[in-house]
């Protein structure tokens, strides 16, 4: 029994863990993704400084996962009453675990899709370096990846939205 007490956290803890993981994983993914794209962008700008604006647009694309993660984290905090005036509501362990599970899609899909999107954006930046008129196509390649982050965001949102205390 002694070892089980290690996991004997309150429901509130699990809910906050969910909020933390949503912001944390998706944020890490976006940071890495933007970093990958930024390296490529600096390379292209070193050849032609006039392309700064174009490549910056592409570099920003993997940033959305971090925002989606923040969004879900924020909604969880609202839900558990941490941002309101009345303080945190009581949450059972199973409710807390439910919130943790709801945060999983955007956290996990966020981190991997942002990294993948960063690579696609970097490739798009290379494309713009060679053919500046093809910016739109580079953007679409990166946006294809983002679809799955959008879907994960949607599922996370719908799951959290449906819970009541």
């Amino acid at each position: 029994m002694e070892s089980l007490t290690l996991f004997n956290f309150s429901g509130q803890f699990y809910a906050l863990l969910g909020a933390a993981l949503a912001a944390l994983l998706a944020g890490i993914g976006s940071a890495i993704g933007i970093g990958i794209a930024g390296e490529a962008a600096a390379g292209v700008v070193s050849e032609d400084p006039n392309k700064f604006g174009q490549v910056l647009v592409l570099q920003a694309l993997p940033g959305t996962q971090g925002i989606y993660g923040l969004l879900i984290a924020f909604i969880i905090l609202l839900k558990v009453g941490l941002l309101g005036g009345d303080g945190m509501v009581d949450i059972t362990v199973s409710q807390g675990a439910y919130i943790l599970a709801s945060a999983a899609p955007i956290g996990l899909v966020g981190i991997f899709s942002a990294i993948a999107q960063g690579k696609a954006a970097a490739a798009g930046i290379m494309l713009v370096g060679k053919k500046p008129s093809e910016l739109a196509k580079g953007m679409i390649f990166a946006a294809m990846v983002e679809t799955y982050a959008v879907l994960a965001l949607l599922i996370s949102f719908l799951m959290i939205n449906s819970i009541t205390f």
Partner: protein
Amino acid sequence: MAIVEMSKLSVIGLNDNKSDVLKELMTLGVCEISSQDEKLSDSEWAALIKRDFDQSAGLSADMKISEVSSALEVLDKYFTGKKPFIKCRKPVSEAEFEAKSSKPEEAEKLTALVNEKYKKVLSLKAQKTSLLTEIAELKPWLDYEFDLDMKETKYSSIIHGTLPNSVSVTEVESKISQEGCGGVINIVSKDDKITYAVAVCLKQDKENVLGILRQENFNPVYFADIAGTAKENTDICNGRLQEVEKDLSDIEAEIGRLSQNIEVLEFYYDDLIIERDRYKILTNILRTEKTFYFDGWVIKSAVENVKSVLDKYNCYYEVTEPEKGEEMPILLKQNSLTEPFQAITDLYSTPSVNDIDPTPFLAPFYFIFFGLMLSDAAYGLILSVGSFILLKHYRLEGMMKRLVKMFMFCGISTFFWGVLFGGWFGDMFGISPAWFNPVEEPMTLLVFSLILGGIHIFVGMGLKAYILLRNGQAIDAICDIFLWYLLLIGIVVFALGSRIAPIATEIDKWMSIIGAVGIVLTGGRSKKGVGKITGGLGSLYGITSYLSDVLSYSRLLALGLATGVVSQVINTLGKMVGGGVIGVIVMIVVFIIGHVFNLAINTLGTFVHSSRLQYVEFFGKFFDGGGTPFNPFSRKTKYVEILKEEK
């Protein structure tokens, strides 16, 4: 509203009139003169004609242009007046352009002067760098009071050099004396890695001492062409540096003054470009002893104008209509409402001859989707007003103008959806929605988004059916589009049927079955043998792609939520600080920074995702692209726009 109709033009004229004809055609700017490589490689043609191109003339024009453009770059860099935020072409009348570009001597003189001055600037900058290097090199030796060029005295040698800080000077000295040599090492200065030192020893021991020093990683320093102490030399360098800097700022100020005349060079540059293009087009013109020949494309509505020019110069010409499906350059024409949305088509691809122009069809959907994804009334107002101001203040052209105008339109849509969903900087003012709040009722908006998506996809399929019917492929239209309509509508209504009426369920069950069976039977019609069966099943499996296409429109909801909730985050953060003067100030700062960030990132996201829905889900159904854009023989000026006179 569509792809502009073109006519084919072939012209034969006399060489004496050639330059006048070309000049007038260029002013009209409605013809594209085609490459004649094919005819030149045909032996029958090649026997009669040759390419009309004087390479040296084109080359000298190119050289002049590159000189002028480097002078323009210099002037732009040192331009002292107010620079516009966006550089736009200046409108001038035909007469003004003629007048201002009629004096090339002045412009040529200015070009030469500017380039010469800039060369001087570069050489002065190089001098400055070398002086700074010298000063930096002398700096560690400033405390050494003897002349640097003094390498020996009557009996002793003096060696200047550096040692790593890790080496102890006293140890080195004792090593020298152990070897039986006489010598001392004086430390001049130290920085964080290196000790600058002078070793003095007897002349006959010099080689030995140097050997010992080298073992301790000693690097001799030689002062070439320097007389006197480090201090004296530094003073001289500083003096020269001041002179160089003064010269530099004088010349730069002079260039700054010259930059007031930048307009002269801009006119000259554009005049040269026009002249160069007139030489270059000769590559596409064929000639015999007395005559010239070219062919190409003319905008159909402008054929009469071209004819009158050709008649004036007694050219023999022929205007024919293109055959069906013949490759020709593509020009799109829109009405004023759909015109800005051509930016989206242009960013993707020029339609091919067999396509239809997708712009009028994508425009309403783009308008709706953009607003739905951004969905904040205040953001919409900012976007529209901002774009409007840009359009009023700057003479934007081409893609830039279209995009800005498109954002102005989409801002209106954003405002509209913002009012419906109650977004005014998110929940800042607590204005209640005219329809419903998507954060509270996400399922309603999700269903609405998917329905919008379904309509979008159906319109795309309808356009494909239209193209197929136009090309006389009625069977393909029925099998690939109408059966799918039957199946998809059937499935959707069947699923919802029980809510509408039981009889609908029955009808739609049979609609789906007919559709599905039809697709299985006809899907493999172009294949042979077993392929007919597997092909049919394979094409029914395509239903999964329709499912994923429709689900893709859930991003309409997700991005709308992203804008709304991030606004809410910003507002909550801003209000957290609490009351008091400081609280209000912090709140305002957080609001401004936060909402500017949110507007920027979400406008970008919205732009990308509305485009994606057009490119992937919509264009995928009917649009191929890959056409060649119409590239008329016209005056492609960079700095001025020569206004056509109304006749």
